[in-house]
């Protein structure tokens, strides 16, 4: 059986800077994962729908607009409503230190700020997915 880690990299919200998202998407591809990239300006509904159809193991959200405290809770809620509470969600971009605990409380696995090495993201993702309990 040929299992591949499938990750959705999404850019919810209105900012138009997708370089970070693309760098992470590429790094995860180079780590052997199948990365679904959806492009800019995704609504939470679009992110959750893509995560469902693609049956991903993880969702990476890149947010630089400052709207993370509005977008992330909504996405977590939609994933749960779709039966995807086991999907690992991580957030990257510009996230103020004081918001990190609140995001982690929502069930976000990790928040990666600027300067995080992409290999760290790939390694942690592998640990979450491959170490996760069978359903």
């Amino acid at each position, binding site marked *: 059986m040929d299992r*591949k880690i499938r990750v959705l990299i999404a850019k919810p919200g209105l900012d138009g800077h997708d370089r970070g998202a693309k760098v992470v998407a590429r790094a995860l591809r180079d780590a052997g994962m199948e990365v679904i990239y959806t492009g800019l300006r995704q609504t939470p509904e679009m992110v959750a*729908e*893509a995560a469902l159809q693609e049956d991903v193991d993880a969702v990476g959200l890149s947010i630089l607009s400052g709207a993370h405290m509005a977008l992330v809770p909504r996405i977590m809620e939609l994933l749960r409503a779709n039966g995807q509470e086991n999907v690992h969600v991580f957030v990257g971009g510009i996230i103020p230190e004081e918001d990190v605990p609140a995001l982690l409380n929502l069930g976000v696995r990790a928040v990666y700020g600027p300067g995080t090495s992409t290999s760290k993201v790939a390694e942690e993702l592998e640990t979450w997915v491959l170490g996760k309990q069978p359903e």
Partner: protein
Amino acid sequence: MDYAEAVRSGNRLALARLLTLVENGDPEGRKAMDALFPYTGQAHLIGVTGSPGTGKSSLVNQLALAYRRPTAGAAARRVAIVAVDPSSPFSGGALLGDRVRMRDLSGDPGIFIRSMASRGTVGGLARATAAVVQVLDAAGYEIILVETVGAGQSEVDIARLAHTTLVVEAPGLGDDIQASKAGILEIADILVVNKGDRPGVESTERFLRNMLEIAHPEMQDEAGNETGSGNKKTGWIPPILRTVATRNSGIQQVLEAIENHKAYLQSSGEWQRRDRDRLLFELNAILRDQLYARWRQSLPEGAYNHAIDLLMERKQSIYSILEALLQYHA
């Protein structure tokens, strides 16, 4: 979870999970496919192929939107899209970006989009694409659009999978020598010249028409006038259609051509013949894989490496080694 039953009753999460199981060759996926197989054979399978950058994803996006609009003659159709992108031969990973051009389709429960990595298979599709399409067919999607890896000249597997194959070209990508190469153009049931607002579109169309006229001499009457692609005498002649997918221009004509092609397939008996060919091809592919896997398992430890050593020392030829290796087959 009984995947087959859940998928038949419209459970999208179960469908998505089953597609993963099928893609991974999981035994549970095979079990569900056994139960679903009687429900397959209903959908119109439409392949979309062509060189990278010709606008396949944008065209698929517009076609899906068009199928979702009810028309005077027909209700809106349920549409599934399978978009295949290449896996990296080095890391085995893949960047699947076709959804970027399909954002118009989100929020519609009558559409299901699935991205697939080719996972080392050449030919423009993944090994499991046929199986994934079968599951979507059994799930009740009436139109299944399969977008191949950006294809060159040999990625022709799509013609075996699809009822109707669209080959997408764009102006300025190739000359008439490219167009007369065998392979990708020969598999076209419909030729689409996308980006039709770009310079050079007329010459691209002319090249394609010349190519078709060589393949179908009946396209010209005795006086040398073009009789067009409506010639019913000798079967199907691929129409050449101009689109600008990003502006939704020419899409309706493509849709009509697809419907015409379906009617042609059904009235000519070609539909059944293609179905038979497809199932035969799939069975052969699976048979080949399984026979190889079983034979490999029956080989004693080290026999294969020993054989390679003998070859390298030029002590035996490949064919004599082959005879020896095949003895092991239980």
